[in-house]
């Protein structure tokens, strides 16, 4: 069962419509590139008709079954590779589109808490071409938003938006965070002193 889940995940970035919200929100891993099944990411609106979309879905299910059961693995892999070549451009574009959507969803959730932009950068942001999203211009540019504008090589989005270490956290920030958390729970440094003193002076004598 685990194998199937992982294969499905890899074919993911897939049919968001098909496999359901769960896997989509889970995100996807691009780590095992050897499978390269995460190119099967067409969507319903990519297809001229419902029938064509269903055929496409069935094709993908066949592939999954073959890989899980270990039937015709080589032939299946060849099929996948061929598909990848034919649809390279389209795959990248739809991946980009998906990344954008996820970024938008995440930002809505967080309400832009951690994006600190200095004044200078803000000016630059406003001056940016309207098509670009603000986060793309942050130093470190984690959310690169490629636009399928015309032909030409398209940059692939780097580092999924669910990557939690989006703000590089150094030792200092971590310590500050921990201390703030402790203080939120009612702790003060004074408590440590008081307790130590109380124990010290209280335990000097038995009688």
């Amino acid at each position, binding site marked *: 069962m685990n194998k199937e889940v992982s294969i499905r995940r890899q074919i993911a970035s897939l049919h968001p419509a098909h496999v359901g919200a769960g896997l989509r929100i889970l995100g996807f891993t691009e780590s095992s590139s050897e499978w390269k099944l995460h190119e099967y990411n067409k969507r319903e609106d990519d297809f001229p008709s419902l029938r064509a979309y269903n055929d496409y879905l069935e094709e993908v299910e066949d592939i999954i079954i073959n890989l899980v059961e270990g039937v015709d693995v080589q032939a299946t892999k060849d099929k996948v590779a061929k598909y990848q070549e034919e649809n390279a451009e389209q795959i990248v574009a739809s991946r980009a589109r998906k990344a954008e959507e996820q970024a938008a969803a995440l930002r809505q959730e967080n309400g832009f808490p951690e994006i600190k932009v200095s004044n200078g950068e803000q000016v630059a942001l406003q001056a940016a071409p309207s098509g670009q999203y603000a986060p793309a211009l942050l130093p470190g540019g984690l959310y690169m938003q490629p636009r399928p504008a015309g032909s030409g090589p398209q940059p692939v989005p780097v580092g999924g938006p669910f990557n939690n270490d989006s703000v590089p956290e150094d030792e200092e920030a971590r310590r500050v965070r921990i201390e703030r958390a402790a203080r939120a729970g009612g702790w003060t440094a004074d408590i440590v002193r008081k307790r130590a003193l109380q124990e010290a002076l209280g*335990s*000097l004598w*038995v009688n």
Partner: protein
Amino acid sequence: MADFQTSTHRQHWILSRQDLAQKYQIANQRAIQMLLKYGATRVEVQQDGSLVYPGTPLETERNGTERHTSLPEPLTIDEEFLIRRYYELKIQQVCAAFAFPNKIQATAVLFFKRFYLQWSVMEHDPKHIMLTCIYLSCKVEEFHVSAEELGKGIQQDPQVVLKNELTVLQGLHFDLIVYAPYRSLDGFLFDMENFVQGTNNSSTQKLQELKEAAKFVVDTVILTDCPLLFTPGQLALAALRKANLEERAVDFERYLQSLCDRHPKHTFKELTLTFDAIDTTVDVSRQPKEADLMPIDRKLKYCRNPGLQDESKKRERKVKHKSKRVSQDTSMTTTVDASPMV
């Protein structure tokens, strides 16, 4: 917050020297009695925690003189003390190897000491009790490690730990909160900061060094009988005094005087006497060497398992009767006195 004045540590576990000596004597005598009566001292711990004492009384009539001569020799109180001291040091080393917080080794050592006030070393295997004490101490000090993890870390069977857990708890009379001198040490250092405030700027640095040195002294003090005789506050101040002799971070006499002025319950003289007593106890007790421990450990093994002694005697006889091969001799001795600790 935990209050020493109302704690069981203060009520039950600070004894006088006579009490201490008496308890050791009682435990030792009991074990010797068992040895004479049954030929072995090991107290088995069942899976459900109940204890099984060596059952069959010695049949002196039947087996006659052979049985008598093969009675293993019991340990004396001093030897028991050395074994305990060795295992307490081992506790500290194991805890350091696991990188546990400091308080865990202090609690574990205290548990170990308290347990062996009730029982003799011959009755319960110190190695098993040592592991159980570490396990319990982790639980009590809110740093839980599972028995498996402990077992994996030191290649011991975790079942041993779990089996002995209840026995150890009962031996401690379920008094599990232990006051180690470390927090008192910190308290006194905070107090000293206020005292030293105006004098010079490098004081904080010196106080830090004093703290480190004092912690080291406390580690040594914990290994002696002192935690059972003196309160943690007294131990902490004594350690500070000793560390200060080297570091010279603060004028200890003046500090002590000011302390006594502020808390008129304690007099300067009494405190100084206490510290002197602690110092002498620490200086007198020494860490046993491995070589000294080997014969004691062998004796211990025979007490717990008289069968071993018979086996080794049989092997000795066999070797002597066969051709005299020196290599076999040395190999035999190494199997017999297996080291006390893995």
